């Protein structure tokens, strides 16, 4: 469903060339739930943006649902749902319902299907109370639920989430996690999420991809991740070790 | 860029009517670039002051308890900004105008001194006007109306678009005696040596004092409002 093959992206910052992502290869099969970890500035967001077609890779290939997102951006956009935790993709000044209506048109969703999906999402995400409120007046938790609903109205094959739980309180986080697990298991939607919250990873992800300095630093199941540091019992300690360079050198990457 | 286009229009007008308003073509071109240079420091398109935002956010309360009076404090800030804008926004158009068309440069020190005085007074008038507009936010729900009204009055009646001497009859006389003329038309006439120095400076000083006076009254009213109603 998702495939990166030696993908790289460089940025020119004044005179210097910065490698945000280099030689990154991994793939995600249909129905998987993959968490993408990495320290700040590691290249997670750049990777996500290349997968959505927002950024064009400067080297290597990126495939989303078999298509090149940079060249076939709008076709790819129809098949994926994207949520950025840091900023909403909804229309800031419009009521939530208007945003959904716009999505229905933009994604060309059949009216009947739209109604039934919206009813279902309204119930599972508990949106009923603020459907007619302008997005700018929503709380962060409400807004995130609205964003999730908007990303799923067109029933995408893949859901891409960039830090979906950032800034949320414990209860809201738990609600979002429950919802994401159901989307993955009940609908079979492939989910790729980036996060700094390791509880997200423990509760949701069967597989972890760790990016550091733009390169793949680990790719494997949660158990394999824990096994990289025998004797450490908490995932936090394991990941800290990996981030601070206590792990194996980049050449020796564990693969599935 | 915009100054150049305006200069051509004025040149065409002065070719049709040489000597209009006591200017020759060179004066008209110079007028155009001097007024262009005044846009920056005089903030003719409005704004510049952070006051409206501070009023909306409620930070104005902090400003009012400062030991320095709000109006003078803001004036000091604004003069600083004007000095900066003079350097980056005023010199380039003057040089461009000089290079493309050639502009009149006063030869005697007296005229420069008169212009400097007129420029300083114009800054105060411009500030005092924008200060009043900014404070009006306190009493209005939608401040966009006042902002646009100020923009129209300032651009049209300052002489920034055409010399006010071109306005027909009474309108012309009226326009040259209004506060907006004190921001652009009057200092430019001092630069060109086309107006009586004492009379011009007196008119500018009158508007500066009058608008600053209104500003002081408005500041007291705002303080009252903030203290009594809590913002």
């Amino acid at each position, binding site marked *: 469903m998702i495939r990166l093959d030696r993908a790289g992206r460089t940025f020119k910052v004044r005179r210097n060339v910065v490698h945000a992502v280099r030689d990154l290869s991994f793939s995600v099969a249909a129905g998987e739930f993959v968490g993408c970890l990495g320290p700040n500035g590691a290249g997670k967001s750049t990777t996500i*943006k290349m997968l959505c077609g*927002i950024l064009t890779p400067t080297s290597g290939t990126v495939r989303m649902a078999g298509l090149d997102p940079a060249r076939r951006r709008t076709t790819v956009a129809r098949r994926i749902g994207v949520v950025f935790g*840091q900023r909403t993709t909804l229309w800031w000044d419009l009521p939530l319902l208007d945003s959904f209506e*716009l999505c229905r048109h933009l994604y060309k969703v059949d009216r009947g299907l739209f109604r039934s999906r919206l009813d279902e999402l309204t119930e599972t995400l508990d949106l009923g109370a603020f459907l007619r409120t302008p997005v700018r007046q929503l709380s962060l938790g409400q807004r995130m639920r609205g964003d999730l609903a908007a990303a799923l109205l067109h029933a995408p094959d893949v859901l891409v989430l960039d830090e979906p739980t950032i800034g949320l309180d414990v209860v809201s986080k738990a609600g979002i996690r429950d919802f994401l697990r159901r989307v993955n298991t009940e609908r079979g939607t492939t989910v790729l999420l980036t996060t700094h919250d390791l509880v997200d990873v423990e509760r949701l992800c069967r597989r972890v991809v760790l990016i550091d300095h733009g390169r793949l630093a680990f790719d494997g199941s949660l158990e394999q991740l824990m096994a990289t540091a025998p004797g450490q019992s908490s995932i936090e300690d394991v990941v800290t070790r990996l981030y601070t360079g206590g792990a194996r050198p980049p050449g020796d990457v564990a693969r599935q | 860029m*915009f100054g150049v286009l305006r200069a051509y229009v004025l040149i065409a*007008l002065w070719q049709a009517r040489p000597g209009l308003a006591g200017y020759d073509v060179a004066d008209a071109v110079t007028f155009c670039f001097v007024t262009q240079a005044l846009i920056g420091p005089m903030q003719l398109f409005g704004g510049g002051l952070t006051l409206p935002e501070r009023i909306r956010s409620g930070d104005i309360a902090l400003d009012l308890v400062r030991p320095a009076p709000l109006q003078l404090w803001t004036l000091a800030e604004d003069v600083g900004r004007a000095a900066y804008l003079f350097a980056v926004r005023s010199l380039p158009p003057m040089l461009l105008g000089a290079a493309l068309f050639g502009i009149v440069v006063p030869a005697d020190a007296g005229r420069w001194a008169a212009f400097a005085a007129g420029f300083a007074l114009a800054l105060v008038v411009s500030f005092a006007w924008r200060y009043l507009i900014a404070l009006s936010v306190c009493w209005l729900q939608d401040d966009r109306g006042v902002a646009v009204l100020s923009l129209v009055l300032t651009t049209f009646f300052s002489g920034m678009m*055409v010399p006010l001497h071109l306005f*027909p009859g009474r309108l012309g006389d009226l326009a040259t005696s209004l506060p907006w003329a004190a921001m652009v038309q009057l200092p430019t006439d001092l630069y060109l040596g086309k107006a009586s120095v004492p009379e011009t400076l007196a008119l500018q000083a009158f508007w500066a004092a009058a608008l600053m006076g209104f500003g002081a009254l408005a500041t007291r009213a705002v303080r009252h409002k903030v203290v009594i109603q809590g913002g």
Partner: protein
Amino acid sequence: MVRTYALLAWTWTRAAAAYRGSFALMVLLGFVVAAVDVAVILVVFANTTALAGFTRDEVLLLYGAASLSFTLCDMLVGNLDRVSAHIKAGTFDTFLIRPIGAWVQLAADRFNPTRIGRIVQAVLVLGHAVTALGVGWDRGWMIAVMVATGMVIFGSLWTLAGALQFLLTDAPEVVNTFTYGGQQLTQYPLAVYSRELVLGVTYVLPLAFVNWQPGLYVLGRDDPFGTPEALRFLGPVAALVLALAAMAAWRQGVRHYRSTGS
């Protein structure tokens, strides 16, 4: 694309219409601001009967036609020059995750129906000039062509300005000089400007086709710069060439987009 645009524009209009008083005020203010430019023309003609050989009503015809194209474009695609603001705020990503072109979304974003005030003003000036000059259908048909041509040219300029903002993100006012400079330039007959400038806006950046070349035909006048008669009718061609260039530039711009931060 047109349907998508209409849908987005309608949604914004509905949102704006919710505040009725403010809506009416903004329409009125737009009208007043636009009137300043006309007032300047009237002041100039209070002092002379002809400017570079053109009468007041002839100038108003040229002004009205250019203004109508410009204000229509300003309402329809004026938000394209906010590329740099969107990039800085990090909101441009949002346009790219939707299954439709970023251009349409950006053009329709915050569609502002209150700009109708300025359009009405342009229509009134143009209507006055046509009546006063007694322009007949034999040449008057060109006015429709010229407004349409002008819209394509200004729309292309906005697109180019937007495209350039992908490169010059920190200096949007530099590229916006094109659009607003174009508006300022076309307010007066090009006869007032220097030969080099007019040749530049005829053969390089085709602003002369917004109202000047076709306008000369409507007024039945020769070009004081002596350009060939055929140019009066070439506006649509020039507009098309510029539009294609603008489209190519926009594509390049989006491809070179560097999304900021996380």
